[in-house]
């Protein structure tokens, strides 16, 4: 599995791309939350959705920084651990946004 291109620089670039993927996801979560909050008729729901997406986005950006620190030389122990809890949290955030969208749709 490890080939000729398993070079520390490749490893660092991979980390950078993963970190960027988290950043992009954080921005997408913020954007959808803002759209939903704007379209929501209820102020309390809008505030709840905004609180959720701000918390989720900040969490993802902190995660992107901490977990995938782009040190091109060292081996970071974090990257050997699958991000189960983090990915599950991201999934839950999207499902909550979808459910909130349905709530806004029917009210």
């Amino acid at each position: 599995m490890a080939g000729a291109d398993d070079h520390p620089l490749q490893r660092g670039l991979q980390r950078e791309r993963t970190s960027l993927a988290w950043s992009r996801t954080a921005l997408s979560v913020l954007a959808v939350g803002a759209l939903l909050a704007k379209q929501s008729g209820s102020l309390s729901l809008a505030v709840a959705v905004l609180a959720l997406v701000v918390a989720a986005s900040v969490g993802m950006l902190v995660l992107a920084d901490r977990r995938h620190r782009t040190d091109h030389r060292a081996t970071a122990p974090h990257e050997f651990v699958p991000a189960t809890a983090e990915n599950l949290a991201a999934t839950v955030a999207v499902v909550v946004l979808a459910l909130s969208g349905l709530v806004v749709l029917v009210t």
Partner: protein
Amino acid sequence: MSRRWHWIDRLAEHGTTPDPRFTLANERTFLAWIRTSLALVAAGIGVEAFATDLPAWGRRPLAGLLIVLGGTLALSAFQRWYRSEAALRRSDPLPSNHLAPVIALGLSLGAALALVLVLVEW
């Protein structure tokens, strides 16, 4: 190691740790699917909010379809990620996933409904 639920830790202890490039690639693929599901949810909200020339009897189901599709895709994406990570750790071939065909089918249904609504209003 931070305190977590057992089944979450279980994946980290499953099989042997693969080349981290594969773990990272799997993670990025999961996030790409998550962004796709967010786009679907946004499209559903957008249809309801902005496609006001379409009749409400059809617009609401269309918006609902897109939102439900997005939410379901997010859950499927997590399952795909989990099963792929487990397969990587066992050095098994990656499990086939049906995310793309299901999304294609759902979007086709949505497009057909949107077409019907546009023709009805025309």
